[in-house]
């Protein structure tokens, strides 16, 4: 492993790699900072940029975009109280309060430092944990894999945001879209309508671009296209100072760990991690009453956690091929177009691509910090780009993205249709991320289940007996049922809380 890391280090210190990592981090930051352009959308829109690159270059670029976009999302939150990405909502609560008090610079500076620390911590974990997980994953058999996939889908209900039932329904909808094309085990065509472009199913990248960009465009286009009232306030000095950072060390450490762990769990993403980290920080804080009124700890905890999700979330994606959230799903799409199929074999088959990618994330975190301190003052204006412009330009980029993946006009239609469906679902309060996970995980679940049934038949066992044959499988089944049970409990509690809030006349944030 050390040898591979050393080889990879040589690859990433090439000027080309450095440039790509810097461009990726800078573009990610700028895209993420634009209100309405989430981290997922940033990656989905920038994947086409990598079509003609080598796999290594493409991944270095996309990884950097991921890191930059998660960080960049908080900029608009802090400056104008509009989150650039859902992951920045927790940051915004205290960040914007600080700006109102004239400490916007301090908020931005803390934001950069915390994102940097959280990000680097999680990449270290990724670097050393992923190969171990991959080694264990080599022993995973179809039965276990089936339950891992089902577990991943059920955790969406257990820890996602909003209604658990709706989350699960969105996931199932994705699983159904995933059945289009050839049946993985027999090649039977389903829902292909005699269209060869559909024989291999709905391409993840195309679905992602459609669901996230077109639905978002329609959402943005609903409101005022241009708001001339918005202004960026004076921010002042950004560097928070060593003393301040030293005081935050406990918060930083705790939040980085929380972010990484939450990232590992499928179904949860940076938004959830940042809220958990913030409430944990508040619990341990000496002055919890400051939270919500411009607490620097609030900004620090949320930001360290959401950037720490990056490394954590890449572990299941790279080692098992299971993306835990929409952003990693987008990144997975980026891997697939370069012919890299994530899974344990990736670590033995393509270490020459994988390790440079992982190491480049260190660079990405460094570069967005440099970019943040160096250029933020000048590029902060992007948060003021009118939504009307963002909407139109995103559509144009989405069309390129959908088309150039396979050079098929047909894919533009898939993208458009899914975008409209996604918009309607959003209006009905269904989350979109589980759909993407379903599209990716559906074929995996189906093929492993079919295989289990075939194997069980050969051994003259029923499918249930076959599942019971290995303790690993049983453990995963227990976990899955626990997650589903908890989803229903959570849904019950969610409704009760909502009702209580409404009964009290509180704003439910819709």
């Amino acid at each position, binding site marked *: 492993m050390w040898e591979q890391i050393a080889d990879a280090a040589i690859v990433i210190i090439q000027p080309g790699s450095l440039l790509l990592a810097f461009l990726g981090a800078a573009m990610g930051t700028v895209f993420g900072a634009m209100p309405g352009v989430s981290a997922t959308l940033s990656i989905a829109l920038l994947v*086409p*940029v990598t*079509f*003609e*690159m080598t796999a290594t270059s493409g991944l270095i670029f996309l990884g950097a975009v991921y890191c930059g976009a998660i960080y960049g999302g908080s900029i608009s939150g802090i400056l104008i109280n509009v989150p650039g990405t859902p992951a920045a909502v927790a940051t915004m609560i205290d960040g914007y309060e600080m700006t109102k008090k004239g400490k916007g610079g301090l908020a931005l500076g803390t934001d950069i430092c915390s994102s940097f620390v959280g990000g680097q911590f999680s990449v270290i974990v990724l670097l050393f944990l992923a190969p171990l997980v991959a080694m264990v994953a080599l022993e995973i058999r179809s039965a276990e894999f089936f339950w891992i996939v089902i577990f991943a889908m059920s955790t969406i209900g257990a820890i996602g945001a909003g209604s658990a*039932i*709706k989350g*699960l*329904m969105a996931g*199932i*909808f994705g*699983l*159904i879209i995933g*059945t289009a094309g050839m*049946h993985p*085990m*027999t090649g*039977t065509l*389903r829902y292909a309508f005699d269209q060869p472009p559909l024989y291999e199913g709905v391409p993840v990248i195309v679905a992602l671009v459609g669901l996230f960009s*077109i639905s978002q*465009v*329609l959402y943005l*286009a*609903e409101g*005022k*296209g*241009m708001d001339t009232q918005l202004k960026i306030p004076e921010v002042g000095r950004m560097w928070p100072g060593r003393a301040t950072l030293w005081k935050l060390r406990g918060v930083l450490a705790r939040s980085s760990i929380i972010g990484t762990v939450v990232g590992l769990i499928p179904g949860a993403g940076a938004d959830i991690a940042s809220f958990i980290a913030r409430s944990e920080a508040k619990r341990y804080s000496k002055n919890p009453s400051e939270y919500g009124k411009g607490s620097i700890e609030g900004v620090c905890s949320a930001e360290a956690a959401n950037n720490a999700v990056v490394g954590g979330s890449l572990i299941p994606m790279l080692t098992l091929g299971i993306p835990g959230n929409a952003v990693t799903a987008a990144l997975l799409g980026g891997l697939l177009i370069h012919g890299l199929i994530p899974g344990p074999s990736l670590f033995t088959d393509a270490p020459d691509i994988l390790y440079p990618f992982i190491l480049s994330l260190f660079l990405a975190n460094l570069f967005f910090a440099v970019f943040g301190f160096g250029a933020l003052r000048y590029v902060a204006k992007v948060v003021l780009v009118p*939504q*009307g*412009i963002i*909407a*139109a*330009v995103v*559509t*144009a*980029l989405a*069309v*390129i993205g959908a*088309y*150039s993946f396979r050079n098929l*006009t047909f894919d*533009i*239609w898939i993208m*458009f249709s899914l*975008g*409209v469906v996604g918009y309607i679902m959003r209006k*009905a*309060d*269904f989350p979109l991320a589980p759909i993407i996970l379903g599209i990716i995980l*559906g074929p995996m*679940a189906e093929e492993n*289940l*079919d295989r289990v049934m075939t194997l069980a038949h050969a051994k003259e066992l029923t499918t249930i007996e076959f599942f019971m044959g290995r303790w690993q499988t049983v453990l995963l089944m227990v976990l899955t049922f626990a997650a589903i049970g908890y989803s229903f409990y959570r*849904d019950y509690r969610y*409704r009760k809380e909502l*009702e209580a809030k*409404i*009964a009290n006349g509180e704003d*439910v944030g*819709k």
Partner: protein
Amino acid sequence: MHFPKGAAARDSVSALVIMAVSAGGVYSTFEFPQRAAAWPLYMWGLLAAFSVLLLFNSLRQTVTEQLAQVDKAERNARIKRIAINVGLILGFVILVPILGFFTAAGIYLVIHMSYLGIRPYWLVALVTGGVLIAFYMMFEFFLGVLVPHGLIF
């Protein structure tokens, strides 16, 4: 039994729609050979079951989140607005293979941004021109990524 209002009403409508769609979905699996039919059948069935649950929950809900109240005229205006936005994107998608990406995108960007109230017009022109040049340089020139070409460009 009471008739649901607000978010609960919306949810019950969604549940009914999904129920109908999943019934159709269940039916669609009958034409597949058995081995290929099992999984989609389970999934459609599960979706149907969840939609029943959603309907049940939304009907049972006594206190519900109020959705923003709008009068009929504004509601219609809003629907019209959404339809126009969808229509503009649809027009763009139709034009791309005919006119080629750059021409179609130029027309689309100008119309949609103008419709969304971007003013002054020189800003619309500037953004359109800038975006087209940037895309051309980035995709065609630097990266060699294919974009659709058509009659004009």
